[in-house]
């Protein structure tokens, strides 16, 4: 039985998103950045599901599934990159050392 209201769900989603965002900005370790990204993705997914429940449309949960697939892909590729960096002798996984984009 649904007891949450749409606004409550949005509230939770906003808080989660802000937390994940802080994590991405604060952490220098790539592993933690990936986890924070996952939190942000979950917040976005929560909004979709809540909107689907609000307007009684299954599209919201379809979008949830898509986000799930996206998150799985993103995590797999990200973790592969982490492993690769680690294997090449970058034990710290510091995101700030990968700064070839510097102007």
């Amino acid at each position, binding site marked *: 039985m649904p007891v949450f209201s749409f606004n409550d769900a949005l509230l939770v989603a906003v808080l989660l998103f802000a937390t994940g965002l802080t994590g991405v900005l604060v952490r220098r370790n790539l592993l933690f950045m990936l986890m924070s990204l996952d939190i942000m993705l979950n917040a976005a997914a929560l909004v979709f599901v809540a909107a689907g429940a609000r307007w*009684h449309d299954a599209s919201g949960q379809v979008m949830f599934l898509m986000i799930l697939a996206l998150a799985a892909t993103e995590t797999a590729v990200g973790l592969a990159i982490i492993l690769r960096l680690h294997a090449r002798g970058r034990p710290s996984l510091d995101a700030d050392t990968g700064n070839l984009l510097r102007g």
Partner: protein
Amino acid sequence: MSDLLSISALCCHDGAAMHILAILSASITVVGAIMVITRSIAVHAVLYLVVTLLSLASVLSLLGAPFAAALDVIIYAGAIMVLFVFVIMMLNLGQPDSDREKEWLRPRAWFGPAVLAAVLCGELFFGLRDMPDAGPISMITPRDVGLMLFGPYVMMVELVSFLLLAGLVTAFHIGRYRMEDR
């Protein structure tokens, strides 16, 4: 949070337990997320992330989306987190790593991001403050989702399968052990 509290105060007779459950799961979600981003040991963070995802799953099921909740538990908290645990195991992190994490997490580093996130949060709350409450939320069964998924969204499913395939190939290609790296 205050909204939730007011709701719980209003409905104390019927389904009060459900409301308490709702507040509990919502707060565990947020607190767990905060714990994830503040830990200095990777495994702890992953465990908190699992907690967050599990409570998020209960939030989803309370939103009337049992299918999404089940998937969240199975795929996210199950499969993806296992992936994280594997990678952490392979990285072989130790005391020096957590020390470095602690050093990176000086209070000064928190200032800018926290301000940004707070501003964003405030803006979103401000924008959502007078959204009319839209009455009861309805349940969406897995059947509805399935009909939608393989009806109008079938092309999307194909595209996602392409995405997953591309991810698979990429992960395989990047993660492959190469002699010349050593």
